[in-house]
């Protein structure tokens, strides 16, 4: 009896598994699924979980990756509003928004979807870039650069057609590459080289001019400093002279004595060192040698 019960349990378990395989399927969180009945669309599942179905061949299940797919457009030439040729490549992030349309249009093949998307992206890119000037893509003033605006417009342009026609939700559009056609790059190189040569001359001239300016300014400041110092010294000495002139007032009591004393001093100072003196017999005190009496005014 016990063995029979165990067998029943095992049998029931096997039956449940068998029925589950036949009548249920999973949709993972990264997937969407489409169910067809006798080849005809029946239902779409975009939420993950356990779903019920009728067994094959009555119903078929198609599962598609519902994560954001990355698609990159070729680096192609296009023309701006001001007739400048540029090369632009866009990258696009898309996911399946309507599994039914995706199945019907592309038979669930992502490569086919991207081939269709490529045409959409190309058209949108050319149309939107045609509304922008070249200066909207590169500018010394960051506010003039309209990268984000361009990307938003391109996204909007692609989104409508992709969703309605192909069941795709385009969520991201960005510039992947931006450049110039090969023929133009050569001309840009020539311009870059000539600009650099001009800069070399400019920097060389600037260096010399600035150095001369700094040196002459330094010389001027040196002269100013010295002139001011000389003036200060002169003023100080002038003040001293003024002070001295007060002391000189005492000489006015006896000017002849003052003059005499000053002369004596000058005489001593001028003949203080390495002097050659030629005297005659009348010079005091050598007049004593000739027997003359010392007298006033005989000194020469």
């Amino acid at each position, binding site marked *: 009896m016990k063995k029979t019960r165990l067998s029943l349990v095992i049998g029931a378990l096997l039956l449940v598994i068998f029925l589950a395989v036949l009548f249920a399927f999973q949709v993972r969180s990264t997937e969407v699924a489409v169910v067809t009945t006798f080849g005809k669309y029946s239902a779409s599942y975009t939420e*993950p979980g356990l779903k019920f179905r009728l067994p094959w061949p009555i119903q078929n299940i198609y599962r598609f990756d519902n994560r954001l797919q990355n698609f990159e457009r070729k680096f192609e030439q296009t023309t701006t509003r001001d007739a400048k040729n540029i090369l632009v490549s866009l990258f696009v992030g898309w996911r399946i928004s309507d599994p039914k349309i995706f199945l019907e249009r592309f038979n669930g093949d992502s490569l086919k979807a991207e081939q269709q998307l490529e045409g959409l992206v190309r058209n949108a890119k050319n149309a939107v870039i045609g509304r922008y000037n070249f200066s909207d893509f*590169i500018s010394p003033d960051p506010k003039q650069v309209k990268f984000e605006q361009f990307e938003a417009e391109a996204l909007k342009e692609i989104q409508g057609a992709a969703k309605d026609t192909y069941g795709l939700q385009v969520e991201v559009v960005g510039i*992947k590459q931006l450049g110039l056609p090969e023929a133009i790059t050569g001309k840009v190189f020539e311009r870059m080289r000539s600009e650099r040569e001009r800069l070399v001359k400019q920097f060389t001239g600037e260096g010399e001019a600035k150095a001369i300016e700094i040196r002459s300014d*330094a010389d001027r400041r040196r002269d100013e400093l*010295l002139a001011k110092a000389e003036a*200060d*010294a002169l003023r100080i000495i002038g003040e001293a*002279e003024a002070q001295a002139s007060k002391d000189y007032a005492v000489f006015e*009591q006896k000017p002849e004595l*003052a003059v005499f004393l000053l002369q004596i001093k000058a005489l001593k100072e001028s003949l203080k060192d390495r002097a050659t003196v030629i005297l005659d017999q009348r010079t005091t005190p050598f007049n004593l040698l000739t027997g003359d009496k010392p007298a006033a005014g005989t000194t020469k």
Partner: protein
Amino acid sequence: MSDQPKKSGQLKLTATPVTGSDDASSQALNEALGSSFLLVRILAVLLIGAFVASCVFTVTPNEVAVVLRFGKPQGTGAEMLKRQGLHWAFPYPIDEIVRLRVGETKTVRAAQAWYAVSAEEEATGTLPMGNPTISPAVEGHTLTSDGNILHVRATMKYRIADPVTYAFRFSSSTNLLVNALNNAVYHASARHTAEAALYKDVSAFNDAVRRRMEQWIVKENLGITLDTLEVERSAPLYVKSAFDAVIAAEQDRSKKISEAQGYADETIRKAAGEAAAIRSGGMVASNLLVQAVSAEAKFFSDQLVSYNRAPELFRQRLLTAATAEVLTNATDKFFLPERGDAKSREIRIQLNREPLTPKAPGGQPTR
């Protein structure tokens, strides 16, 4: 009944009359079946053990795990993530364990705007030859705000901050990150001049790339944390020598200015010193003058009394003293007596250049 199999799973044999040879073969069959059922039982036990073991899984420190039950993540927010340790889940296909490596730092490189370089040149740091034009099929470039061409390459290191978003939202997060990083490079280039991007404002250029990348991370909820972003830039190889010449000229300009600045500093410092010396000299001369005059005035006052008493004597006394001092100090003294015939004497003086004395050490010749 003793010859009947007792254990479950064994085939039950009915008791029928058999011959001796039949009995032996039945016994052999019984033994064979008994062995088989034993094997089946062991297998069943092992399968049950494997089933139980499959319900348990471990998560290592550098990863997190998400349990999908019938394809749907279990839990919400942080509860969704099973971190390091032992965990339990139903076996597949009821539950599915998705492991995500979050601890390690990942790297992506955006080289869409870089020049063509071989792996060998890259490894040795050798620059390839520059071409007079850039072929878009071979190498990339960016456009700067002043219409110049540059090569820029960015390498980003990042960690996964939101594993569920990173793994479940994007079919290839890496590709999207590379594209976003390329976009950031072109975005920054379009706003900076070639000189700024190359050497004048490198940090601002790097910041612009980083800011744009961070905008992408937030805007598209990429589920990562940006660690480091290294931006390399190069002038086009064909005109690189012209850029190098500009750098050399700028350095030369700086050198000239720096030398002139040095001259200016030295000149002004020296002049300031000279000015101080001149002022100091003025002060010294001033003090000397005042003191000298004061002394002379005092000397005059002191001598005035004597002078008033006998002026001529005073004069002679001082004159004689002065003559003595002068003649004592004089190097050469000549005494010329008057001629007896009262005629004037003729004196001839030959003035020779005085011989130079030997040079003083480190100084000018002294006389």
